[in-house]
């Protein structure tokens, strides 16, 4: 285990990084370390954490904008937002518990570094769509800024997007400025029962085609629904297809009825009220139905919504798989038995046929060393990504090899 260095300021972080840059010895970059078990294993001499750089230093509720130091716990951010009836609309997923890390500790910088977006992504955009500005330290040890604090900004290239989702391989995020949104007054969930996967996905797509601003759609087959901690939904032991609507109270009531009518061919749904809805969707945010288990590996597949069941069927021809569909069928969490390659060749073949990308979220270190964890890129994209790595981190100081062997 290497030492963990905790910088309290961007300046201190630069000083801590400098001797490693000087010696060209790479470092692991983490926040709280909740996602440390995701990605390819790395060879680093030290671990540099942003967790001591914390605090919200700008929050303007009427401008829908907040700025925080990179190591600020997400929980602190969400509590501050909640006190003003606001939220991070992309409801970041907590990958900690499912990947064998701690629950509820992730930092705001890590949310953007991993572009972590939950169920509302399908309606409102990903983490990176909400990132307005960054201050970061590159692998050269240079402090830089990109973006700003206003919602509309096309001044210069969009470096924020380039860095969101780069898993700490381009820069260390010391500050992030992001867009926030009002929390809905009321939430309701229409829960349909016992639909097979393909019909569940069809229902979710049909719901998204209605003008009622459905803000979350998940389908849990019976065996996975049975894992829910939420008692009233889990006890039923049925497959669940859940559709979320959010707005002011009268609107939610109206839309719930309008949807029930428009989608009646799929059965009569249970309509779950605000309190239970919040619990249910909150539980999904931490992937409670895909709990850590050494006997299984977990894949995250993003595809066109109607392709979801086809990818799952294709994988099931080779191995058993427990699945959960989010994003109207376009995001599938796939749990397969642990094996030397985590089923990578079959999963990737299914994705190649039907389109999309697959990431190995949970697997033993030896497996993550043996197979590609992130979706392999085309040679041209690989070359361009390598070029970007050179711009920010020419000596491969930051998280080298975590995403791909060459970056």
């Amino acid at each position, binding site marked *: 285990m290497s030492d963990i260095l905790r910088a309290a300021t961007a300046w201190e972080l630069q000083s801590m990084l400098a001797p490693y840059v000087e010696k060209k010895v790479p470092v692991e970059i983490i926040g709280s370390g909740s996602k440390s078990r995701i990605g390819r294993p790395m060879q680093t001499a030290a671990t540099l954490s942003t967790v001591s750089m914390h605090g919200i230093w700008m929050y*303007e509720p009427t401008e829908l904008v907040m700025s925080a130091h990179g190591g600020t716990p997400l929980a602190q951010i969400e509590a501050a937002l909640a006190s003003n009836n606001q939220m991070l609309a992309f409801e970041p997923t907590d990958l900690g518990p499912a990947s064998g890390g701690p629950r509820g500790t992730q930092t705001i910088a890590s949310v953007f570094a991993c572009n972590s977006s939950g169920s509302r992504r399908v309606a409102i955009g990903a983490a990176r769509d909400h990132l307005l500005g960054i201050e970061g330290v590159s692998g050269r040890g240079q402090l*830089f800024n990109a973006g700003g604090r206003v919602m*509309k900004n096309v001044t210069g*290239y*969009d470096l924020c997007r380039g860095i969101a*989702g780069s898993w700490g391989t381009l820069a260390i995020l010391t500050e992030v400025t992001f867009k926030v949104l009002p929390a809905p007054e009321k939430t309701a969930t229409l829960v349909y029962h016992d639909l097979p996967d393909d019909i569940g996905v069809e229902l979710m797509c049909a719901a998204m085609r209605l003008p009622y601003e459905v803000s979350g759609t998940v389908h849990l087959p019976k065996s996975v629904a049975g894992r829910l901690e939420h008692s009233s939904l889990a006890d039923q032991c049925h497959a669940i297809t859940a559709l979320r609507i959010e707005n002011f109270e009268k609107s939610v009531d109206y839309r719930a009825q309008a949807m029930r009518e428009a989608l009646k061919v799929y059965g009569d749904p249970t309509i779950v009220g605000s309190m239970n809805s919040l619990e249910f969707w909150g539980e999904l945010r931490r992937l409670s139905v895909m709990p850590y288990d050494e006997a299984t590996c977990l894949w995250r597949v993003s595809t066109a919504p109607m392709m979801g069941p086809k990818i799952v069927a294709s994988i099931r021809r080779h191995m058993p798989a427990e699945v959960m569909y989010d994003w109207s069928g376009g995001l599938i969490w796939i749990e397969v038995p642990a094996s030397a390659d985590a089923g990578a060749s079959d999963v990737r073949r299914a994705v190649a046929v039907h389109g999309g*990308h697959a990431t190995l979220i949970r697997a033993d270190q030896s497996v993550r060393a043996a197979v590609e964890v992130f*979706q392999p890129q085309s040679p041209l994209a690989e070359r361009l990504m390598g070029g970007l790595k050179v711009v920010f981190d020419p000596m491969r100081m930051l998280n080298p090899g975590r995403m791909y062997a060459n970056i």
Partner: protein
Amino acid sequence: MTLQMPQPDRETLNRSEDIIADLKRIAGEEAVIADEDGRRTFETDGLTAYRAMPLAVVLPDTTDLVAEVLRYCHREKIKVVARGAGTSLCGGALPLEDAVVVGVSRMNKVLEIDYDSRIARVESGITNLAISNAVSEEGFFYAPDPSSQLACTLAGNLAMNSGGAHCLKYGVTTNNVLGAKVVLMDGEILELGGPHLDAEGYDLLGLMIGSEGQFGIITEATVRILRAAEGARPMLLGFASSEAAGACVSAIIATGIIPVAIEFMDRPAIEVCESFAKAGYPMDAEALLIVEVEGSEEEINDRLTQISCIAAAYNPTTIQVSSGATQSAKIWKGRKSAFGAIGRISDYYCMDGTIPLSRLPEVLRGISEICAAHKLRVANIFHAGDGNLHPLILYDANDPTSAERAELAGAEILSLCVEVGGCLTGEHGVGIEKRDLMLKQFSETDLSLQMQIKSVFDPEWLLNPGKVFPLHLTVDAGTSNAA
């Protein structure tokens, strides 16, 4: 006007006849425009004060042909300026005398519509509005809606990451695109994303969007299409002062309401737009807000009533809900034609800074003072929900001193936007217009990083050079921006 462009390369100009002959051989006679009258159509864009006759114009009709043309230009070290409809307000599509303009306007087909995945795959020369028209029968639309949406192409929107009046709710271009086919300067074709969300690896697509045609030419894109709300209705709120209007916007957002659009006009803008559109704008107001909400009839009524109650605290001179579809169309026609309407009475120079909304009163005061000091009139129109200002500085193009004063006033206004925590451009792009102001917002380190990224995609700086970055800056590798 005062902005300098890089000196054209003599050697390239001397070869122009050969180059034109080569382009005709590659792309076909009909796809190449080389005569003077033909090229003159392309000599400027929406920033009409600047003009340059391109060496030649090529209008390919396939991605492969774009790739062949670029491969040729790359081999021959000829600069390329990509062009959609040429509506850029910042000179983003301004040709260079030693460059070939590659226009995508002939590539305008809808290739695929998938309502289950809620995507449309289109060629990039399609106009913005044509995408919405192609899916409107099923009740869908493409959300980004720049005022020029009737004419502007998706390619231009992608290059500049365009916004529009309704992006308060629906986001700008980058938030609504999932995939693209891009031709790089060396002729290689890069496929990014697709009908799925959040492609992995570094977000090359996110970098490509808003790169002002300097990374590659996007020939196809997969865009998100959204189901339209059951209905939408705007209301007009008139106020005795800009401060009251600004405070009202903050109050609306503070209560947790995000209307689909909140547009602001000051008195000079109201007068011109009303005489053009006859939309029923209040003529006695110093500031006007157009606030639009969406939903069912009942939802709309509830929301508008709520907003009226909030506005009441700011002593509005007018609260008027649109009487129906006809007036709604007029209200939006007035707003979306604002630039054109003002153009009928005067030449104007359109600014595009964004500010934190809380600084609105002081910025509006600052804009008046700056324009008064330069003896110029100004009309203010902006997207109030997100603080994206469009001061229109009125000047006389026949009077060179007036035009120069307008540029100076514009630069001072944009500097003010940056000083209060905002940015130089919210949705129009940097182009040539704001190129020399970039150091007001970014350090040389910040810009150097950006320039090095350009070099990753286009190592020889052949694509749309002379824009975005001050000419005196150089990339570490020694490539000059002006090269």
